[in-house]
């Protein structure tokens, strides 16, 4: 039995080495491999992702999740809690990657316009901005692996009566030190990136990143949606409200883009630019809202046992909306680089 196992293990190692060799050969054949390095983007996604985990989970739960991922887990309540932790961590990285991509693209566009030789770098700007999304996806997959493993273990376990399990201690609503520290770390990472960009571009007004109209529409709409929903089933729906408003804002921007294409000259281009920015800023504000307000609130409700699992709508706002935001970002880039067709004269 053990010899069969060791044989299987050796086969796995050989297959792994072969895959690596093929990948290396492929990279070598490329000649000029793409530059996949963006150290600042990498650090931002990593630090902010860790900050989000600190915001949503206390240290004991983080330690337990790591322990459960490394060794055979304890009772079902612990496994459930660890599964949720890893899912939340992966979700955070996924959203943050796309958030940083949008931020990169915004700063890249300003750099293109201010730098006399900037237009040569337009495609590079897009590629660099998407690198952060790639890092986010990589980190998310790394976090989802223990989540899936634990889910498998939970399903393979025989059903046992839960005695004394699943009783989640209800904490007082006051802020934990970890939460505060998480917000501080997140704000520091964002501020460090913005300040360095502002310093490079020499544009202090750019510190005001969110385009005000889009920000106001998304925030105002989110508050209105929350008021309309009330306490629907005592389930926090802030992420859903943010995602809905982000999507509505993006759609408004898209309609304006189409409309602007019928107007010629600088007026048309100005309208188009406003629309493109509206799309980007709507997505950015909505993602930021989900990350710093919506998701922690919902995580808290789940941890306290107010709701058993995230709802389908919440999951859609965490996974589908960022994907849509990324698609909108690519669309913005394509529209920007596609020249306007001259009208009849």
């Amino acid at each position, binding site marked *: 039995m053990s010899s069969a196992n060791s044989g299987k293990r050796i086969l796995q190692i050989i297959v792994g080495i072969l895959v690596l060799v093929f990948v290396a050969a492929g990279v070598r054949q490329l000649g000029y491999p793409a530059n996949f390095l963006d150290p600042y983007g990498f650090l931002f996604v990593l630090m902010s992702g860790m900050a989000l985990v600190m915001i949503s989970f206390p240290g004991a739960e983080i330690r337990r999740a790591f322990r459960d991922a490394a060794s055979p887990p304890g009772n079902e309540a612990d496994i459930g809690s660890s599964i949720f932790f890893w899912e939340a961590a992966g979700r955070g990285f996924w959203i943050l990657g796309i958030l940083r991509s949008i931020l990169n693209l*915004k700063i890249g*566009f*300003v750099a*293109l*316009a*201010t*730098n*006399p*030789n*900037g*237009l*040569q770098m*337009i495609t590079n700007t897009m590629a660099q901005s998407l690198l952060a999304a790639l890092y986010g996806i990589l980190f998310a997959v790394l976090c989802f692996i223990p989540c899936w493993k634990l889910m498998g273990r939970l399903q393979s376990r025989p059903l046992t009566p839960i005695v004394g399990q699943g009783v989640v201690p209800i904490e007082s609503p006051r802020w934990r030190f970890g939460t505060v520290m998480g917000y501080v770390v997140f704000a520091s990472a964002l501020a460090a990136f913005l300040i360095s960009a502002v310093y490079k571009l020499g*544009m202090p*007004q*750019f510190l*005001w990143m969110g*385009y*005000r*109209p*889009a*920000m*106001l*529409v998304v*925030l*105002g*709409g*989110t*508050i*209105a949606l*929350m*008021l309309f929903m009330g306490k629907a089933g005592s389930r926090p729906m802030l992420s859903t409200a943010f995602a809905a408003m982000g999507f509505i804002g993006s759609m408004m921007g898209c309609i304006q883009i189409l409309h602007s294409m019928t107007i*010629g*000259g*600088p*007026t048309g*281009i*100005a*309208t*188009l*630019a*406003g629309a*493109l*920015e*509206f799309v*980007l*800023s709507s997505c950015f504000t909505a993602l930021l809202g989900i990350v710093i307000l919506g998701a922690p609130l919902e995580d808290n409700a789940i941890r306290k046992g107010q709701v058993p699992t995230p709802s389908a709508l919440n999951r859609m706002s965490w996974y589908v909306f960022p994907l849509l935001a990324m698609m909108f970002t690519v669309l913005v880039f394509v529209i*920007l*680089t596609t*020249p*306007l067709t*001259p*009208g*009849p*004269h």
Partner: protein
Amino acid sequence: MNEKNIPGSGLKGFLSQMFKDDLPPEAEARMQRHFCRLESVLVRAEAQVKTHRCQWAHIMLRKEVMAFASAVMLIAGGVMHLGGNQSVLAHSIGRVKTVLTVSAGLRRATSMDCTVLKPGDGDAQSSFHLRWTARVATRVDMEAGNRGVRTLWIPDASVSTALYAGIASRPAASAAITRDVLWQPALEYVTPVLLARHIEERYGLIETERRSGDGVDEFLLIGQENQQVIEIAVDVGTYLPLTLKKYRLDLVRAGEERRCVEEVRFRWNQPIPRELLIPKYPAGKKPAHQ
């Protein structure tokens, strides 16, 4: 019951006789605890009623405030956006889009006829007449001072295989042409693609401004290069440049009258006779490198 009918010295005495304070200490303590609990329950219930009233008032107030705030935010956002209030980012996106659209228009052009005027000191003005047709050639006629007209043909829009045909119609090396100061003003506009590259990479166009009226509907792109201010007037309908003017930056900064150091006038997509673009060699003067 009348107090007078009760024997003894009144009601107090009667009660003290009937309910003597002779409870054992344990029972008394237990009774005391029950009273305390009852009292605390009553106080808590009263406090809860008060708290509920406060919470409701708070929630009502908060909801009203939030509804008002959300309405204000939505209206302000809509008004600001529809009002065309542009931020740094929108302005930058607009600039990039404008430059890309103009350069794409240039790359789509099928023919170009342009005149470059370069005023010099006194009468030393030089002028160049460039005619270009896609996939054929560029012809440059230069007239500088009293030297007469010289013509340069550039087949396939490539300076490296240029033919030099001056008054004496003598072939010359392409390197000599590219180094010749006399031809420099014209070489910048040899093809629309070259001009598009300059617009994208060199001029650093940063401002747009619209001018309309008197049959003119154009917008200006303003940039800088080599201590010169560059103004390109672009046709709103076709996104193709109409004129390009260069001014000395030091004079512009000093607030003096702007003096144009170079002016280029463009005409696009007009038919150019093909024979103009094919050089006519005198007998026995065929270029050696062809």
